[in-house]
Each structure stands twice: as structure tokens, then as C-alpha cells.
């Protein structure tokens, strides 16, 4: 801290007047003025109570001083936000969620305070239909290059010709297995559930997320990942309820448990799989031969966002290839942008966890929009958790 102890002393009336006059003349900054007069705390409370009361000084443009991002666990390089704050003066608050349903529920209940969030491909059409997200003003997103994006992964960001969301990265939902603890080789969801109830009894995890947990159970039974057929869902429920007493936990943030070896295997997203394998080589990442999910995560701006300029600024910052490269190296998810791909080091692009062979991707399915709002899948998941 650079402040001296004097900063905390009560200020005299004449000193306050002097400081105020200097502040009015503009010879000191607002921050200095508030600091020396001890009004900082009062002002920070008041300025939130009265919007616009202290907006006289803005950092770089009109971005304000803070914003909020809703994203997934272990999904960013913390340095990205530190650098963004250095560049713009905007501090970024990161909130973490474990499912798209949770984000949707928050937005539906109103007043999330998010200025940017990270929905998955299959949810965007619903968000657009419910008018919970804004169409993007592309003029504020000059760093984005549609031409270098791979449409296979990014087409769902556009609904009826209007762009609502820009791609963050794509990825897969597979399984991470600690081979020091689990000796049975696993290559399918069918085997995953079998081993979870036998060799890895009490040590396996599933997501707190209907799409992947129900989806993988469906796949293991030979059905589609996206099924909403009631008889197939009933079979999946039966399997999950049988599985539940054997589980270690139901949680979408499985990295801490995998790292501490409390859990031995888990349903896992590409980026977490890559991070775990990087730090603990005994943890391998496997895609189901019988199926599973392939996905793209996007950035979108909620209609209710309080600081949209900052939301756009951060989005544009993240779309800049130089910044995106660092993000991708840190979080280990595959990019949708060929500009970024070209800049990534060879050890990343040759990593089979991050960029699997096309053949391994063939059985995988993208999530379907209907699964987000289907009441039976929602209730099945809630019932499974409460069972």
C-alpha cells in the first residue's frame, strides 16, 4: 500500500476546504480528493445509491470502474482480468456457475448484475426468444473476425440472422480418470457407470447439470444424448438412482476433489481435463466411444446488464487474438478462431485432449435447445439429486 499513515488522520476544516477548491479547479483527481478527505467510503456507498452522482470522472471512455462476469469453474486465466483492469480501469468480478439452467434461473428471477456471461450453444435461441439477452452491436466488437471462425462451432450464436453471442471456445464432455486409483480401462459411458458402481465405488462424480448427467446416462444405455422420450428418460433415471449411493458427489466443480484424490473419476469438460492432466499426469481424459457431448461456449450480454459498455469492452478484449491465445493456453479449451489457432504453440495444438482426432468426435452430439426447457429433464435431475 502506498498510502502513508497520514491518510488516515481526520482532516481539518480548512484543509478540507483547500482540498475541495483544488478539486474543483481540477488540479487534483477525484480519487485523491476522496482519499484525503475520507469521503471515499461515503461516496462509494452513495454513488451506488444515486446513479450518476459521481460519474464526473470516467476512466477510458465511459466504462465505469467495475463489471461482473458469470462463467464456469476454472475457465479463465486470472491474469486476463488483471490485464484488462490495468488497460481500462474496470475491475472484473467473476461469478461461477455449474449449469446453464442455473444461469437461466438467475436471469429469469431478475437482477443478476452480470454484464457478460458464458452460455452454451444450445441455450442461445431460448435466451433470445425470452429476450433475456441483447443482440450484439458488432460495431463495438472490432476484434471479432467472423471470417476466421469455424461455422461448425459458431453458427448457434446467430438466431434468425441476428448475432446474439460470440464464441469463447469449443470443447467436449468426456471423463477424467485417475489411473493410479482406477485400473480398469474405460472407453465408454457404459463402462464409466459400471466402474463407478464397482471399482470406484464412492469415488466417482457426475455434474450438477441435467444436460451432461442425464445425457451421459442416456448414451450409456444406447440412446441419444438429447433424448426427451419419456421411456428413455425413465431408464436413465433408474440408472442414475441406482448409481447415486455409489457416487462421491454431484458437483460441476470437480477439480478440487480430483486434485485432492477424494474423487478418482469424473464427468469432465475438455478444459478441466487438460488442466488436470497437465498438473497430474496420472489423470487421463477419455471420450466416450458410445457418444457424449460436443459443445461451444459463447459470450453474451444480458438485457439487464448494468454496465454494457464494460461488457462490450471486455468481450472485445477477449476476442483480440493476442489475449485469446493466453486464455486458451491457460484454460486448455480448443479455439474456434483460426487466427488464434495459428498463434498457439505446437504443444497445445498437438494435445489430443484439446484437439482430438476427428474420428473420436464423430459419436458426439451437440446439445439440443429443447433439453434446456424440457420440464421432464429438469424434474428428473432434481429428483435424482433429492433421491
Amino acid at each position, binding site marked *: *500500500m502506498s498510502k502513508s499513515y497520514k491518510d488516515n488522520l481526520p482532516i481539518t476544516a480548512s484543509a478540507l476546504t483547500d482540498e475541495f477548491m483544488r478539486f474543483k479547479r481540477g488540479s487534483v483527481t477525484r480519487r485523491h480528493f476522496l482519499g484525503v478527505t475520507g469521503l471515499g*467510503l461515503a461516496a*462509494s*456507498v452513495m454513488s451506488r*445509491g444515486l446513479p450518476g452522482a459521481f460519474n464526473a470522472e470516467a476512466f477510458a471512455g465511459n466504462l465505469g*470502474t*467495475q463489471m*461482473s462476469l458469470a462463467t464456469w*469453474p*476454472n475457465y479463465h486465466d486470472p491474469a486476463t482480468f488483471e490485464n484488462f483492469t490495468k488497460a481500462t480501469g474496470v*475491475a472484473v*468480478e*467473476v*461469478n*461461477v456457475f*455449474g449449469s446453464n439452467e442455473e444461469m437461466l434461473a438467475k436471469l429469469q*428471477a*431478475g*437482477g*443478476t*448484475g*452480470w454484464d457478460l456471461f458464458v452460455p452454451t450453444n444450445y441455450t442461445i435461441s431460448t435466451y433470445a426468444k425470452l429476450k433475456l439477452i441483447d443482440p450484439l452491436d458488432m460495431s463495438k466488437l472490432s476484434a471479432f473476425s467472423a471470417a476466421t471462425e469455424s461455422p461448425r462451432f459458431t453458427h448457434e450464436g446467430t438466431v434468425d440472422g441476428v448475432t446474439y453471442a460470440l464464441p469463447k471456445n469449443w470443447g467436449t464432455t468426456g471423463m477424467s480418470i485417475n489411473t493410479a486409483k482406477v485400473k480398469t480401462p474405460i472407453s465408454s459411458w457404459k463402462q464409466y457407470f459400471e466402474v463407478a458402481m464397482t471399482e470406484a465405488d464412492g469415488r466417482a462424480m457426475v455434474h450438477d447439470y441435467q444436460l451432461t448427467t442425464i445425457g451421459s446416462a442416456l448414451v450409456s444405455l444406447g440412446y441419444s444424448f438429447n433424448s426427451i422420450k419419456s421411456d428413455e428418460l425413465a431408464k436413465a433415471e433408474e440408472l442414475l438412482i441406482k448409481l447415486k449411493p455409489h457416487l462421491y458427489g454431484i458437483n460441476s*466443480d470437480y*477439480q*478440487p476433489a480430483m*486434485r*485432492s484424490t477424494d474423487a478418482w473419476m469424473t464427468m469432465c469438460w475438455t478444459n478441466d481435463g487438460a488442466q488436470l492432466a497437465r498438473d497430474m499426469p496420472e489423470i487421463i481424459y477419455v471420450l466416450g466411444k458410445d457418444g457424449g457431448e460436443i459443445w461451444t461456449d459463447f459470450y453474451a450480454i444480458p438485457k439487464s446488464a*448494468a454496465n454494457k459498455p464494460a461488457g462490450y469492452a471486455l468481450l472485445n478484449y477477449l476476442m483480440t487474438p493476442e489475449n485469446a491465445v493466453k486464455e486458451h493456453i491457460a484454460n486448455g479449451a480448443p479455439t474456434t478462431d483460426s487466427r488464434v489457432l495459428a498463434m498457439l504453440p505446437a504443444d497445445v495444438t498437438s494435445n489430443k485432449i484439446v484437439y482430438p482426432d476427428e474420428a473420436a468426435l464423430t459419436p458426439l452430439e451437440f446439445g439440443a435447445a429443447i433439453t434446456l426447457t424440457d420440464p421432464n429433464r429438469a424434474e428428473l435431475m432434481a429428483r435424482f439429486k433429492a433421491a
Partner: protein
Amino acid sequence: MRAFITAVYLFLYAPIALVVLLSFNAGRNASDFTGFSTAWYGKALSNTFLMQALENSLMVAFISAGLAAIYGTMAAMGLERLGKRGRMLFDGLLAAAIVVPGVVIGIATLVALVQLFALLNPIVAALWPTDSPPQFGFGYGSIIAAHGLFSMALVTMIVRARIATLGRDIVEASADLYATPFNTFRLIVLPQIFPAILSGFLLAFTFSFDDFIIAFFVCGSKTTLPIYIFASVRRGVTPEINAIATLVLTASLLLILLSRFLMRDRPSPVPSE
């Protein structure tokens, strides 16, 4: 017996000791203890979001407990004067405010306010003279309201119990000596019930400051300290959280010591006026 008591205190304090210890950890994770450092205190104090959450929590707790202390005391005095049926109704509501689980209070407040805002906002917008009418929404107001409900019921109960032990005779004596009812209250009743009001206020403050589940539903875009901590548990707790918890603990310990000290020096609770 002594071994058992020692074990109980160890049980109570082991996690707290761990929190304090980890707040001085130089490493980032609880699992790697790499050395002694006070760096996390600096980080915590310069983390805008953490500080803002702390500030929000202090403000919400102070206002909700303060309002609860004032309105609760007024209610406790007014209940004396209420008819039997009114008093029973009020008693029932107060009891309900205390025993209904926090999670239900949170949900019910959310559900009711969502509807209420949807109803009020268009009306206000239609009547408002300019183009930017105020919007009702979740935030400090809704947290204070929901916390204040429990707190007010708590204060009312505590103050009422104290009033019940007061002799009527001293109040009547005061009236006989031609004191106005207000002066009787100020000079006779208030000094006697003040400790009850204060302990009600402190309980209410503690409750609000530590509440997670009610605020979880009604906080809107505002973050209180427990909500911030809950979010960071999911994000991976850094020693920053341990540092701020240690600071809060130290502050409350100092407050306890201070109140002990002040209590000891006060000669008697009877005012000298």
C-alpha cells in the same frame, strides 16, 4: 470431565485456528503451505469486490438491525396497550417470523416481490413525469426488509420479556409526579429496557451479518459477504477469504473486550438526571 471440555473447545476452535493459520499462508491453496506471509491481507483489503461485499454486509446489518431495534421496541410497548385479540394475532405473526425457515422466507419474499415489482413498475412508469422513472428491483432494500422481519420479531420478544419484569409502580409514581408520558418513557422506562434493546440489536446484527440463505434469494445484483464467500468456495477459496474472516473475528473479539471494559466502568444503570 476436564478432558471432555478441552476436547469440546478444541473442536470449536480447530477450524477457526485453521482459517487463521491459512490466512498467513504464502501459497495460493490450502493444500500447499509454503511459508508465512501477510500478503493476503493486503490483497483482501485492496480487492474492491471483497471490500464492497463487506461494506454491503455491514450496511445491511446495521440498517436492518437498527430499524428492527426501533420498530421492535415500539411494537413491544404498543402491544401492552393492544386488545386481547389484536395481541394474539400479532403474537402469532411474530412467532411465525421467527420459526419459518430462512430458506422459505427467502423464496416467499422473492416470489412476492417479483410479482409486486411487475405490478408496480409499469404504474410508476406511467405516472412518472420524465422518461426515466425509478425502477423497483431487488437490492439493498429487499435484503434489509427480509432480514429486518426476523430481527424485528426478535427484538420485540426480547424487549417485551424485559418490560414484563418492570414494575408498574415506578411508571405510576412517575405519572403521579406529573411527568408527561414521554418523559416517563425517556427517563424511567428506556434506561431500564435499554440493555434488552441493545442485546436485541446485537443479535439482529449478527444474524444479518452472517445470513446467507435469505440474501441468496433476494439480493438481486448486490453481493453481501456470505454471498461473496459462497461464490468463492465454488471458485476455489484463496487465503484472501481467510484473511477477511480473521479480520472480522478480530474486530468482534475487540468489540467484546471493549464492551466488557465499558460495562465494568459504568457505575450503575440508573441515569443521574
